[in-house]
């Protein structure tokens, strides 16, 4: 039996050669156990070494290989060719981000936003090491664990029409991570995060499309996190009106 094949329509943008991106069609062998990333690696190794894209772990942990597969943000290491057979499969860089080259997007905007929410445990005063670790019960861990599973793969930003239309929006992953630390019993940094998280370019920009949670490969549910922060933000606003002396 002749070997089966599948066509990949790959987004190409080589800023040193062209002003506008194009699509290039490649035919690759079809294997049931191949994911889109395997097909890209085959192209890179065997057909066209100039193709550029990010990848690392091949097991859905590193968050590097996110791309648009037939218009939907996917980790290409988890997008099986058999789900797209007989094809063609259109592979594009993550939507809503500037494209540096081929399938590689510029993530500087997200990196700045991520840093702005202080995604680490903030303490008013660190206790000395001699006093031991900050202890936490299983229930306290369960409270934030779901939101700690984010791998910064950016699929949620690519799925969010608000981020596409209003790039100043803080966005799903950054807010979900702020929420993760706000829910952590060891953290005392909520008041330091609130100017960013409760600000105009953050939770109130979200119109609850929910597509971020649909595409999340780690079931983080950023849409839920944003709505829960909206409740916290609304309560904070009410408190600041009723008790202006205690809000800061």
């Amino acid at each position, binding site marked *: 039996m002749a070997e089966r094949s599948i066509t990949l329509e790959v987004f190409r943008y080589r*800023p040193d050669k062209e002003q506008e991106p194009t699509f290039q069609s490649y035919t690759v062998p079809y294997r049931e156990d191949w994911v889109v990333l395997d097909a890209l690696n085959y192209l890179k190794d065997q057909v066209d070494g100039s193709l550029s894209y990010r990848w690392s772990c091949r097991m859905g942990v590193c968050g590097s290989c996110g791309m648009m597969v037939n*218009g939907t943000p996917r980790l290409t290491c988890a997008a099986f060719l058999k789900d797209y057979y007989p094809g063609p499969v259109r592979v594009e860089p993550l939507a809503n981000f*500037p*494209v*540096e080259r081929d399938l590689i997007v510029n993530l500087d905007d997200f990196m700045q936003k991520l840093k702005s929410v202080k995604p680490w445990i903030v303490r008013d005063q660190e206790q000395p090491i001699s006093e031991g670790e900050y202890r936490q019960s299983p229930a306290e861990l369960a409270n934030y664990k779901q939101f700690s599973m984010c791998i910064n793969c950016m699929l949620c930003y690519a799925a969010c029409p608000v981020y596409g239309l209003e790039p100043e929006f803080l966005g799903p992953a950054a807010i979900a991570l702020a929420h993760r630390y706000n829910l952590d019993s060891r953290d005392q940094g909520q008041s330091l995060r609130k100017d960013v998280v409760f600000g105009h370019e953050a939770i109130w920009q979200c119109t*609850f499309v929910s597509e971020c949670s649909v595409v999340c490969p780690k079931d983080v549910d950023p849409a839920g996190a944003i*709505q829960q922060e909206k*409740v916290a933000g609304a309560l904070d606003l009410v408190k600041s009106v009723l008790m202006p002396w205690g809000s800061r």
Partner: protein
Amino acid sequence: MKPYNRPISASWWLSKSSYLLFMLRELTSIFVWAFLIYYLVQLSHLAKGTEKYTAFLERHASFGWILFAVLALVAALYHSITWFNLTPKVLVVRKGEEKIPPALIAGPHYAAWLAISAVIAWIVLRS
């Protein structure tokens, strides 16, 4: 070298059924807004006395106005149902390590909605 910014098409909301359903949910607010205006005008006629109110009702008994009322009802139902279905994402209640099931959050919202609707129906229909 300059990164390439892809333009977003004005029809982005037609590219996916989930985006379309979201836009429909947003559009329901137009019908709710329009019906509220209609309702306020109706109340102002009621305040002017039985004769004016009856004339108002007769003027709005045409097919077009009934269609408008039906569309407003469908829009309000769609908005309410999709909103109640989303409440478990907003309101998370935990019992120890476990979240309580989403149905236990959405359920009471539906129950309260039905109960309040029943009370209003009783008040309106008892005469």
